[in-house]
C-alpha cells in the first residue's frame, strides 16, 4: 500500500509542471502569437482610444513578463478576471454557470461510447473472423470518421423533424428546470424527485449524447475486440473450458481482464470527448462551455475566452491525474 501512496503522491506532484506548461501554452497562444488579440477580436474599424481602453481592461498594456506572472498568479489563486461585457461578472462564475451542462453531456456521451464500444467489440471478438466481425470493424472506422455536426443533424432530422419524437435543441423544456443543487439537471431531478424535469432533461440529453457516444465508440470497439481475442487465447481460459465452465461465465472472466487497457483509452479519449462536445453543443444549441467559448469569441470578450481555455486546460490536467490514479488502483503493475 505504501508504494501506492507514493505513486499517487508523485503523480500528483507531476501535475504542477503539466499545469504550468499548459498555462504557458495558453498564454503564448493568446498573447505572444503575432497579431494583437484585442485588435483581431474587435475588428479593424475601432478607434485607437477604444482599443487602448480594452487593452488596459485585459491587462495587455504591461510588459510581457509582468503579464505572464500576473496571469499565473491570478489563475493559481482562482482569479480568472472579469467578463468584459454586460454585467462584468467574474469569469469563473460565468464558467460555473455553463460547465455543468458540458459535464452532463460528456458524462452521458462517455457512458454511451463505452457501452456501445464494449458491446460491438465483444460481438466482434466472440464471433471472430465472421461477417459480423468484419462489419464491426467497418463500423469502428466509419464511427471514427463521422463529422459530429453532420451526424448530429442527421439524427435531428430523423428523430426531431420527421418522427418528431425528440427535441433538437436545448437542455430541458423551459419552465420545468429542477431546483438547483448540483446544476446537473439529471442528478438534481433525481435528488428532488422531480420526474417531469428528469424525463425532460433525459430526452434532451439523448440525441447529443448519442451523437458523441457513437462517434467516440469506434476506438473502444477495436480495442475491446483485440484485447478480448488476446485474453481468450490464454491458457487459463482453455483451462476453464477443459473444466467445463459455462461459456457465459468464461466470457465474464475474459471481459474483466480485457477491460484494463480500455481504462487507458478512456483517459486518452477524454480530450477528444471535450473537443467533440464543442461541436455537439453548437449543433444542439447546448448551453455548455463550448458554446460559451464560441459566444465570447464572437462578443470579443477577451477575458472570458482566456478563462474558458484555461479552465479546459486545468480540467484536462485533473482528468489525466484521476485516470492515472484509477489505473494504479486497478493494475498493480503500474506502481513501481
Amino acid at each position, binding site marked *: 500500500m505504501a508504494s501506492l501512496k507514493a505513486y499517487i503522491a508523485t503523480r500528483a506532484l507531476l501535475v504542477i509542471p*503539466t499545469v504550468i*506548461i499548459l498555462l504557458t*501554452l495558453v498564454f503564448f*497562444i493568446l498573447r505572444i502569437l503575432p497579431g494583437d488579440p484585442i485588435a483581431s477580436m474587435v475588428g479593424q474599424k475601432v478607434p485607437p482610444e477604444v482599443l487602448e481602453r480594452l487593452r488596459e481592461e485585459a491587462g495587455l498594456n504591461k510588459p510581457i513578463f509582468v503579464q505572464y506572472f500576473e496571469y499565473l498568479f491570478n489563475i493559481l489563486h482562482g482569479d480568472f478576471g472579469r467578463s468584459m461585457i454586460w454585467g462584468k461578472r467574474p469569469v469563473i462564475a460565468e464558467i460555473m454557470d455553463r460547465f455543468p451542462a458540458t459535464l452532463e453531456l460528456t458524462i452521458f456521451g462517455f457512458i454511451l461510447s463505452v457501452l456501445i464500444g464494449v458491446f460491438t467489440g465483444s460481438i466482434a471478438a466472440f464471433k471472430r473472423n465472421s461477417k459480423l466481425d468484419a462489419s464491426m470493424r467497418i463500423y469502428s472506422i466509419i464511427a471514427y*470518421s463521422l*463529422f*459530429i455536426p453532420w451526424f448530429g443533424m442527421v439524427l435531428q432530422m430523423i428523430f426531431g423533424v420527421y418522427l418528431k419524437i425528440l427535441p433538437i435543441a436545448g437542455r430541458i423544456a423551459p419552465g420545468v428546470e429542477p431546483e438547483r443543487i448540483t446544476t446537473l439537471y439529471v442528478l438534481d431531478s433525481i435528488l428532488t424527485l422531480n420526474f417531469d424535469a428528469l424525463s425532460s432533461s433525459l430526452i434532451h440529453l439523448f440525441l447529443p449524447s448519442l451523437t458523441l457516444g457513437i462517434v467516440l465508440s469506434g476506438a473502444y470497439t477495436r480495442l475491446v475486440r*483485440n484485447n478480448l481475442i488476446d485474453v481468450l487465447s490464454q491458457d487459463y481460459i482453455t483451462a476453464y473450458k477443459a473444466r467445463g465452465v459455462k461459456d457465459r461465465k468464461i466470457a465474464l472472466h475474459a471481459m474483466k481482464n480485457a477491460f484494463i487497457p480500455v481504462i487507458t483509452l478512456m483517459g486518452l479519449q477524454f480530450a477528444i470527448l471535450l*473537443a467533440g462536445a464543442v461541436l455537439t453543443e453548437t449543433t444542439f444549441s447546448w448551453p455548455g462551455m463550448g458554446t460559451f467559448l464560441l459566444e465570447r469569441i464572437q462578443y470579443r470578450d477577451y477575458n472570458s475566452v482566456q478563462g474558458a481555455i484555461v479552465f479546459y486546460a486545468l480540467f484536462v490536467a485533473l482528468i489525466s491525474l484521476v485516470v492515472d490514479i484509477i489505473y494504479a488502483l486497478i493494475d498493480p503493475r503500474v506502481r513501481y
Partner: protein
Amino acid sequence: MKGIGDTMEVKNLATRIFRPIIPEAEGRNMVIAGLIIVIVILLMAILADLIAPYNPTKLAGRPLSPPSLENPMGTDNLGRDILSRVIHGSRIVLVVVFSAAIVSMSIGVPIGLISGYFGGKLDRAISMIMDSMYAFPSLILAIAIAAVLGPSVVNAVVAISVVYVPTYFRMVRGQTLSLKSRLFVEAARAAGAGNTRIMSRYIFPNLVTTAIVVFSLSIADAILTEAGLSFLGFIVTAPTPDWGFDLSSGRPYLPSGYWWMITFPGFMVMLLALGFALIGEGLSEVYAPGRER
C-alpha cells in the same frame, strides 16, 4: 540471429517503399478502397471548374428547391447549386489539411528524431511540453489559435499545424528510442558513423513506414478538425464554398425539413476522412502482418 533479422527487415522496408505496388496482405482491400475515395475527391478538386455544372457562388435555380435533374443535390437558400458547391468545397479542405500536415511534419519529425536520439534533460523537457499539448483537446487548441489570428485559410493552416506537431513528435521519438539500440545502428556506430549520419541514414529510413500510417490517420483527423473550424466560422466567409461552412449555413433550414442542404456537404467530410482512415488502418495491417492492432 537478431542481426540477420534486422538487416532483412531493413531490406524488406526498402522494397516495400520503393515498390509502388501494395503487397498482398490483410488490409490491402482497405488501402485500395481508401485510395479510390481519396483519388476521386482529389480529381474532383483539381477538375472542379470543368465538372461543376454551375458557378458555385451564382444563382442556379429557385432557392431551396429539392434535388432534381437540373440540380442533382438541390439548391441552397440563395438558389446556388449544391452539387457545384460540394465539388468546389473540396478545395479548401484539401489545401489546408495537406499544407498543415507538411508544416507539422517538418517541425515534429526532426524534433522527435533529435529528442529521442540524444535523450537527456532536453528530451524530457520537450516531451513534457509535447505531451501537454497532446493532452489538450485539439479542436479547442485550434479554436484558440484561430480566434487570436482571425479567420482565414492561412491562419487555419497555422492552427491545424500546431495541433498536430505533437502527434508526429511522439511517433518519431518513440520509434527512434527503440531503433537507436538496435544492432544495425550499433554496427553503424562501431563502423564510425557520426550522429547525423546515423539519424539520417539508419534511423530515419526505418521511420518512414510508421510515418506514412500516422500521416494518413492524422490527415483523417485533421480533415475533421478543419471541417469543425470551418463549421464554427473560423476559416472562410460567404460565399466561398467549403463543406464545414456550408453545413453550418444549412443548419437554420433543418427544422423546416430542407434535408439536402446539410446532407451532402457533411457526407463529403465523412467520406474524405474515411478515405484517409481506411488507408491508414489498412497500411498498418499491411506493414505489421499478424499483429492485430
